[in-house]
Structure formats: C-alpha cells, structure tokens
C-alpha cells in the first residue's frame, strides 16, 4: 500500500552566508502492506513529519521513489487525496469557522461521495465517535477531543484505503484517548484500512501497532514487531525505557 524506496529529503536553511543543507530524511526505505497497522516513532526533529508530508504529497522528495495506494504522491496529489485520509493532531484540516456538519458536507462534495453512501458512513462514524452533540458547533469552538474526533471522521468519509495519522492522540485525556484507540483498532480490523501512525505516546503503539518503525536522524533505525523492539534492549522492562534508550542512541539497533 505504501512503498518508500531510498527516499531522501534535504532542506536548504539559513540565509546567504550561513546557508547549509539539512538532511531531514535520508535513504529511507520501507513497505507497508494492505491492512497493516504501523507505528512510526522517532524523537522530535527526526524526520517523521517530513515523511508524512512526502507520503501525502504536500512535499516532494529530493531523491528516491514513493508510491502510496498505487500513486506517486507528489505527481498525483489530487488523485491520491481521494484514496488516503490524513489527520494532523497538531492542527485541524477542518474549516475553522464552519460547523462540523458543514465541513463534512463540503468534504462530501470535494471528494464526490454519493449522497446515500455519505449519509450511511457519517451515521456510522458519528455513532462510533459520538459526534451527535456537537455536529452544529463551529470547529473553533470544539474541545480538543471533539475536534480530533471530527478530524478523524473527515478523514474517513471517503473511505480511504490508507489512513495517515500524525499524532492523533496528542493532548487527549485518558478517556478520549482510549476511545480513539478503540475506534482506530476496529477500523483497521473491520475495514482493512491500512494505517500509518506517528505518536509520542507509546501507549498508542502498545495497544494498536503490530509493527513499529523507528526513525532517527533521518533514517530508519528500527523496523519490526513490538516484541523485537523490546528485545533490542533486554535489560529495560518498560517500552518507554526501551525507546528512550534507542532515542539517545545507547543501544545497538538491529534494523
């Protein structure tokens, strides 16, 4: 579903005199099969967001080849948009001043979803995520948890084959978080939606992901199951400590 081959992405930063090139991602290769649920980990600034932007077509890679749902994201941005769903936890992709219902209606038109199908999907998502109480509220007035549920709904209304989630549980309280995890897990199981998720919350990874990829300094430092990840630092008990050790580079990483 997602194929990344030897992808590099560099940025030129600074002005005139102290201009230099920063490699946000280098020589990144991985494949995610249909129906997989993959966690994408990495410390701040490791290249997670850059990867997500390249997978969604916002950013073109400097080198290498990417294919998502059979399309090259940077060349076929609009075609790809119909096949993937994207959620940015840090900021909404909904329309700030529009009531949730209007945002969804817009998405129906933009993605050309059939009216009947749309109504069914919205009903299903709405009951699963409990949107009923705030469908008429403008997005800017929603609480973070409500907004996130709205964003996830918006990303799924066109039933995408791939769902890309960038920190979808950030800032959520324990109850909302649990509900979100439950929802995502069911979505993946029942609809076979391929999910790629970045997070700093290892609880997300433990509950949801069968496979974990860890990016550090722009390249893949680990790719395997959660148990494999634990095994890289056998002396650490909790997954948090394992990951902390990996981030600070105190372990031998078996990629």
């Amino acid at each position, binding site marked *: 579903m997602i194929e990344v081959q030897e992808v590099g992405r560099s940025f030129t930063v600074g002005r005139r005199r102290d201009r230099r090139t920063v490699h946000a991602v280098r020589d990144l290769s991985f494949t995610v099969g249909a129906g997989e649920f993959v966690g994408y980990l990495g410390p701040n600034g490791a290249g997670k967001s850059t990867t997500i932007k390249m997978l*969604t077509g916002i950013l073109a890679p400097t080198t290498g080849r990417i294919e998502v749902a059979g399309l090259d994201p940077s060349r076929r941005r*609009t075609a790809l*948009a119909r096949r993937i769903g994207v959620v940015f936890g840090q900021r909404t*992709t909904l329309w700030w001043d529009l009531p949730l219902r209007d945002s969804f209606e817009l998405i129906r038109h*933009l993605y050309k979803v059939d009216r009947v199908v749309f109504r069914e999907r919205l009903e299903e998502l709405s009951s699963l995520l409990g949107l009923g109480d705030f469908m008429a509220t403008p997005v800017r007035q929603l609480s973070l948890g409500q907004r996130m549920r709205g964003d996830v709904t918006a990303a799924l209304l066109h039933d995408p084959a791939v769902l890309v989630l960038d920190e979808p549980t950030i800032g959520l309280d324990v109850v909302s978080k649990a509900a979100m995890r439950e929802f995502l897990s069911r979505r993946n199981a029942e609809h076979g939606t391929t999910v790629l998720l970045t997070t700093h919350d290892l609880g997300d990874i433990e509950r949801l992901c069968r496979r974990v990829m860890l990016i550090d300094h722009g390249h893949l430092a680990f790719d395997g199951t959660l148990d494999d990840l634990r095994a890289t630092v056998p002396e650490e008990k909790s997954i948090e400590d394992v990951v902390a050790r990996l981030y600070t580079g105190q372990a031998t990483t078996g990629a």
Partner: protein
Amino acid sequence: MADTVRTYLLLAWTWLRASAQYPGPLITMAVGAFAINMLDVVAIWVIFEHTPSLAGFGLAEVMFLYGTSSLSFAVSDMLFGNLDRLSQHIRTGSFDAMLIRPASAFVQMAVDRFSVHRFGRITQAVIVLAIALPRLDLPWSRAWAVPPMILCGIVIFSSLFALAGAAQFLLTDAPEVANAFTYGGSTLTQYPLSVYGRDLVRGVTFVVPLAFVNWQPALFVLDRPDPLGLPYWLRFVSPLAALTLAAVAALAWRAGVRRYRSTGS
C-alpha cells in the same frame, strides 16, 4: 475548468451560509469597507472643490475612472483577494491542509472564509459609477465599451492577486510587498494616468498592464486624445493584455506551488 468553478461556488456558498449565522460582525465589516473606500471619493470631491479639472479631466470623468477601476478591483478582490493572505496560511499550516484535499489549492485559497463583507466595496463602486455615468452623456457607439472594460479590469486585478499570492511562496515574511502592486494598482487607476509621470505611465502600459484596466479603454469611451500621444489602437488591446497577464499569473502560481512542495518552506 467547469469543475474548478463548481468547487469555487460550492465552497463560497458553504462559507456564506456559515457566516450568515453571525451577521453582526460581517455587516460591520461590509459597512466599514464601504466607508473606507468612500474616503477616496471624498478626496476626489475635495480636490474638485479647488479645481474644475485635474490633469485635463473633469469631475464626472475622474469619477468614471474611479468607478470602473474600483468596480473591477472590488470584484476581483471578492473573488481572489484572499490569495494575498497566502503567507499567513503557510505560516499557520492551513495551506498544508488544503494540499491534502482533492481540489485545486488555488481555489481553496481564493475562496477561504468567503463572506458578505466582500460585497461592501462592490456596492460602493456601483454607486459611484451609477452617479458618474449619466453625467457623461455617452452615445451608445462608445458606451458599449464600458462592460468589456470592467471585465478586462477584473481579469487584470485578479491576475495581480494571483501573482501577489505566488510571490508569497518566496516572500513568506514580507507579504506587504505584494500590496504595492494590488492595492497600489487600484489606487493608481483611480485617477487619469495623465496625472502621473511619463515614465510611470509607460511602465504601467508596457510592463505591468495597469493602463488597460480602465485608462486606455476610457480614452475611447470618453473620446479623448491620448495625452502621451500613444497609438490609438492601444485602446482596444485590453482583452489581450488581460489574457496575457492571466497566463503569466497562472504560470507563476504553478511555479510557486511546485517550489513550495519542493522546498517545504
């Protein structure tokens, strides 16, 4: 193309409906836009309190020029004015959100937060034109050129807004530069170009085609000789100038988006 227009209308309608729920601020803003532009008209009126003609043109003629420029600008501002807020959208990340939708980022940008206050300025321009036109006693043999002239003006100003937007892919932290061309172009064309220096007029005739917003066609409508002695046929090339600028703007916007997606600024 038809699809793009449909997307625009759909988004505009959704925004209008959403904004109608809080009419208070919008009415204030529409009235504010109306009044602030009326200041320009008051300025013209005060000037003509002191002189019967300005650079060879009378009050009704200047008001005609003001009205046509203002109407063209107001319509393009309504349709595409939001493009010059691109740098804001880039900084807040909302432009990224537009790129994940299966629709043109240009249309999404242009129509963002479309609301009734965008009509305030149009109303003002229409009123000025409605007062100025009858006073000119135009024969039909020349008056026919007024609607195409306004249309060309709309295309030229819209292209300038698109260029201003495209420029902001480069000038993310200095969006005000673009104002000098969009709002500056509107201010420039509100007066007869005979007011300005010769070099400036040549510049806005042959480089940035602002002279074709209203000045050149107006010379035909008002049946006046060109004070700069430029060729007579220039009065009829507005459509060509407008389409050329539109093509340049389209290319610039495309280049801008491509650059954005390859630099990730």
